[in-house]
């Protein structure tokens, strides 16, 4: 194998930061440059829609501190944009023209929020939430009594809505689907989430879209009007593949990488939200926008990049905290043809959902019942296990009993 003396990581979010750590943990001692557009050192994003909005003193958990960068001898370039990748010269070209050479390159450029355009509303009046700076700006505008409209009732939209309601804002959520979180595949769960948010005073409009606005109110597709001096768009993100595509790397809704994080160019790797990676347990390519993926897939890519081949093979898992509601989702079902529910949607203990495809357990969801999630994740990691649906539905049967005894992690 050729000698590797210089590693460049483009993107200093959670995946970029974790990959930098992994490169060092794998024993590589050459040069590491980490380049990020934000002025901040790598941090975790999940807190942005919750703690950081609610509490001016709250910090987002850091991935790399200044002390870490010094101890790991990382050349951290914060606030710098990369303009291009020159594959022939093995260089990245920064926006200011500086060129940096690499033997191995890792792209961790993450995703960008999908922009929302509303007739009659200036684009700068529509806020989105992706970065720490976005969150701080949004927090300043979430004054008690403000009229907020959140467009999009997905995880981020509902998290922001719940935080805004806690801060005393009047909140309306406008969602195009006829129920919340339809992909859970369970009307009872959707109804539970809806009831939770309505109890918190949030006005949720389903099967509704925005027609136009005037800075004070939004007119909706059903002819009604809602007050909105602040609009927050939560209509999803797209993988930021611009650099990779311009460099001719294979992309298809994400940079295509194998289970080691390697792109169509064997000297270039990619990690995190921006990738569509080969998942060895699911036996297909998958794009994941999650804290877990930004950790484990970035760690695998970082190690593999410096000559320690490592696969990323955890069952996909993510969570969403919406006020006092905790949702967790495991697995990545392509199709769900049966759902088994455990627990009472009207009771205190929350519910767990088990999603089946052709008799095989392919996904699990908990709504305020996180205690079942560790066992669900273990079940999903054993594809040959075909847990009995009746036992799953019975809260008096411990889930643990449906797993092989004392198998090791």
């Amino acid at each position, binding site marked *: 194998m050729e000698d590797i003396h210089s590693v460049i990581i483009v993107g200093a979010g959670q995946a970029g930061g974790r990959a930098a750590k992994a490169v060092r943990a794998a024993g590589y001692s050459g040069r590491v440059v980490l380049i990020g557009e934000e002025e901040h050192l790598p941090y975790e994003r999940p807190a942005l829609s919750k703690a950081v909005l609610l509490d001016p003193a709250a910090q987002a958990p850091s991935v790399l501190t200044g002390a870490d960068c010094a101890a790991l001898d990382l050349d951290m370039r914060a606030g710098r944009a990369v303009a291009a990748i020159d594959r022939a010269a093995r260089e990245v070209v920064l926006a200011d023209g500086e060129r940096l050479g690499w033997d191995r390159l890792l792209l961790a450029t993450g995703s960008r929020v999908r922009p929302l355009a509303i007739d009659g509303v200036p684009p700068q009046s529509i806020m989105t939430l992706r970065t720490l700076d976005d969150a701080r700006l949004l927090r300043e505008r979430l004054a008690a009594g403000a009229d907020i409209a959140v467009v999009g009732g997905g995880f981020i939209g509902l998290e922001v809505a719940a935080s805004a309601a806690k801060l005393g804002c009047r909140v309306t959520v406008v969602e195009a689907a006829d129920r919340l979180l339809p992909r859970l595949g369970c009307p009872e769960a959707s109804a539970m989430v809806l009831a939770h948010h309505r109890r918190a005073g949030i006005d949720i409009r389903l099967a509704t879209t925005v027609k136009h606005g005037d800075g004070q109110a939004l007119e909706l597709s059903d002819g009604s009007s809602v007050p909105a001096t602040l609009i927050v768009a939560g209509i999803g993100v797209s993988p930021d593949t611009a650099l990779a595509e311009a460099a001719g790397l294979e992309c298809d809704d994400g940079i295509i990488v194998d289970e080691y994080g390697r792109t169509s160019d064997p000297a270039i790797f990619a990690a995190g939200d921006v990738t569509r990676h080969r998942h060895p347990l699911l036996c297909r390519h998958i794009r994941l926008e999650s804290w877990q993926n930004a*950790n484990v897939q970035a760690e695998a890519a970082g190690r593999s990049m410096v000559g320690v081949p490592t696969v990323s093979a955890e069952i996909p898992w993510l969570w969403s905290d919406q006020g006092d509601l905790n949702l967790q989702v495991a697995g990545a079902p392509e199709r769900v043809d049966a759902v088994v529910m455990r627990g009472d949607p009207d009771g205190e203990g929350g519910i767990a959902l088990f999603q089946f495809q052709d008799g095989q357990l392919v996904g699990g969801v908990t709504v305020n019942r*996180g*205690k079942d999630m560790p066992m669900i994740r273990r079940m999903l990691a054993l594809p040959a296990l075909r847990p009995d649906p009746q036992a799953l539905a019975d809260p008096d049967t411990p889930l643990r009993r449906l797993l092989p005894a004392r198998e090791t992690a």
Partner: protein
Amino acid sequence: MTDITILVATMSGTAEMVADEIAGRLEDAGAQARILRMEKADIGTLKDAEGPLLICSSTYGTGDVPGNGAALYGALEAGKPDLSGVRYGVVALGDSVYPQTFCFGGRKFDALLSSLGAQRIGERFEHDSRSGVYPEDAAADWAEQWFASLDD
């Protein structure tokens, strides 16, 4: 019969699952175990507990106690009740992906209770989610020993 109150502070639910498992094992060992999520506990819960307390806490990434334990932690910190006479054990769950704040949830409760005069029984149990060992197995094994040592 010894009454044990297991106080749970949890982020994702793992600590609650671990508490369930510990409770089962303690009952098998002859104890009476009660699980209480911390948002349902107050200073009185600690002072008036019949038997020893078992803190079972995970850790938030920044090193804070989990959200559902924050109010109790804050009340203890502000109210500074005299907890002499209270005996407790600690099960702390952590993730070594956060080396600087590993197991801080459990460690913080330990330090606070001890500063208020409560007496810790045994060593604190700490678990790393990256260890490859299931937390409920290791914690229940530990709790069985901990329970046996209460009479010493």
